[in-house]
């Protein structure tokens, strides 16, 4: 424990996680040697653009990578010291939903349209807890009430298509939190929602987190949401962690040029100034540039950047993957 505040034994430790997928060019890593920790009751923001591997990382933690096209190539995911990646499927099922729960981006498609929402919540409850049908129903209604669904008795028998997007995300949260997990992984939970609904859902999540004392891993592309809700941030680029630090340190004072560039791309932060887009696109896995993977797009690159692939260096309060992390003075927000 060298970064962030000390919170005792970490709840979750991800070490050297590498996940590969089959492509036209053979097996290629989508997540490449990712390591981080989550403390109890901590809120971590995992940010990056589409294709950076953040969602795959989240899925891998729950052991949901598999099948013919994907595999975890190496690494460990320790929950209270127990490696989840070596567990068999039945043992994993005990972890999923009970100790680690997950909610996803698309509330519209994440609930089975063929069953009532009540049935689906009961299904999860009875899977993990020894409840009678009647007890489970009562508990499900309590949960619906707790996530702010008006008239939960009536809503219990609704089919998903009868609910709005915001309401469905609340139902999914109710389902995920039904067994009071220690860690909630929220993969872009508000991306598909309107801003006012997003505000409602984020408020709800924050309240429930406090109430249940759980940790949250918030996977998102939205820097502003992270700034508002998280304690610590992990920035990913092309499958790697490029920077991680406390939110209060990272946003005003980014050390990696990619972090700084993303902040500079946010409209509304720098009134009256033009945005400064990053040129080009994220390199595809089969055509990674030599040296630093961000270097071709970086406005601060030197010859050395094209030669050496930088390591993730521990700077005490943060970790950065940039050869020039010490010498650069990059603009942030709120300074």
């Amino acid at each position, binding site marked *: 424990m060298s970064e962030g505040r000390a919170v005792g034994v970490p709840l979750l430790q991800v070490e050297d996680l590498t996940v590969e*997928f089959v492509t036209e060019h053979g097996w290629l890593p*989508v997540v490449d040697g990712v390591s981080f920790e989550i403390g109890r009751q901590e809120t971590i923001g995992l940010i990056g653009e*589409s*294709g950076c591997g953040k*969602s*795959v990382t989240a899925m891998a933690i729950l052991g949901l990578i598999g099948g013919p*096209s994907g595999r975890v190539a190496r690494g460990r995911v320790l929950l209270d010291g127990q490696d989840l990646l070596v567990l068999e499927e039945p043992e994993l099922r005990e972890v999923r939903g009970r100790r680690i729960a997950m909610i996803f981006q698309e509330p519209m498609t994440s609930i089975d349209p063929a069953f009532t929402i009540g049935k689906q919540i009961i299904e999860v409850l009875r899977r993990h807890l020894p409840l009678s049908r009647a007890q489970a129903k009562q508990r499900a209604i309590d949960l619906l009430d707790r996530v702010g669904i008006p008239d939960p008795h009536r809503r219990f028998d609704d089919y998903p298509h009868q609910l709005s997007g915001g309401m469905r995300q609340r139902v999914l949260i109710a389902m995920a939190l039904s067994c009071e997990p220690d860690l909630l992984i929220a993969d872009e939970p508000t991306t598909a929602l309107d801003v006012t609904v997003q505000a409602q859902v984020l408020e709800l999540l924050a309240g429930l987190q406090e109430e249940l004392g759980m940790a949250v891993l918030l996977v998102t592309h939205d820097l502003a949401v992270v700034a508002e809700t998280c304690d610590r941030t992990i920035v990913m680029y092309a499958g790697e962690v490029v920077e991680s630090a406390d939110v209060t340190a990272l946003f005003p004072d980014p050390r990696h040029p990619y972090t700084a560039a993303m902040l500079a791309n946010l409209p509304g932060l720098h009134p009256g100034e*033009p945005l*400064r*887009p990053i*040129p*080009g*696109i994220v*390199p*595809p896995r089969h*055509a990674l*540039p030599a040296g630093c993977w961000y270097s*071709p*797009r970086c*406005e601060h*690159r030197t010859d050395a950047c094209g030669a050496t692939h930088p390591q993730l260096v521990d700077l005490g309060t943060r970790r950065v993957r940039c050869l020039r992390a010490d010498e650069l003075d990059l603009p942030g927000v709120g300074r």
Partner: protein
Amino acid sequence: MTTATPDAAPSVGPRSTAASRPETRWGRFVRRFRRQRGAVAALAFIVIVVVCAVFAPWVAPKDPIDQDLSASLAGPSSEYWLGADRLGRDTLSRLIFGARFSLLAAVQAVLVATVLGVPIGIVAGLARGWVDAIASTIADAVLSIPAIVLALAIIGVLKPNLTNAMIAIGIVYAPRLFRVVRSAAISVREETYIEAARAGGVGTLTIARTHVLPNVASPLVVQISLALGFAVLAEAGVSFLGLGVQPPDASWGVMLGQSTAELEDHPILVLAPGIAIMLAVLSFNVLGDGLNDSLGREIRRE
């Protein structure tokens, strides 16, 4: 504008500036098709059968209708590779010539189905409204009558011969092509690029020609391949019943139908045309599936 460093524009991966041209549609198709071994094998088999059928007089070892009663029901030998039937006709030669009738019949049927189904499908899909409603109801009605029954009925009132049989099968298949083309036209119509093109002042006919046809083409090619398989099978069925190709000419179905009596003692006479039919149908189906996978939109994962 102060994006990148002033020196050379950054080049990352296959970032397409003017230099690297995007892959052509044909190139992409070939690349994706070649990855599917089954479909490639199916195509190879079809090509071989077509070549044999076209050059049958040169490929076949014997005349398919030449009777040699001394060889009646001969087993496979160096002279009769697949044996001979009751009239002493060489099975292999009859198979090769039979391919002519089977394939020609299939092509006729698919032609009829295409001519009927495709234009009406495009018009119905683009026009919508009552045109579409009427055309779709007719298609549904035709589809409600079992294909073989309708084909037999049409043959029944016409005259049992191959062309009539194939017109019947074509009519029966037309609604299927109609449906595919219509739904492709509808889905293209609803894409936002069509809306964008319309907003850009592009006329309806131009849209049909430049946007709809290319998008309808892919599912249509797939369907035509599947339709050929269906037609080969249907022709075999109709000829098996004696309502298609008339003797002494023989398609695979006729060969099968004529040999049922020989099934117990000389199963090869039934199996040879049976397997030929199966392989042909299988090839068209596998080819169709392969085309479907290589012509569809490329799916990218996150």
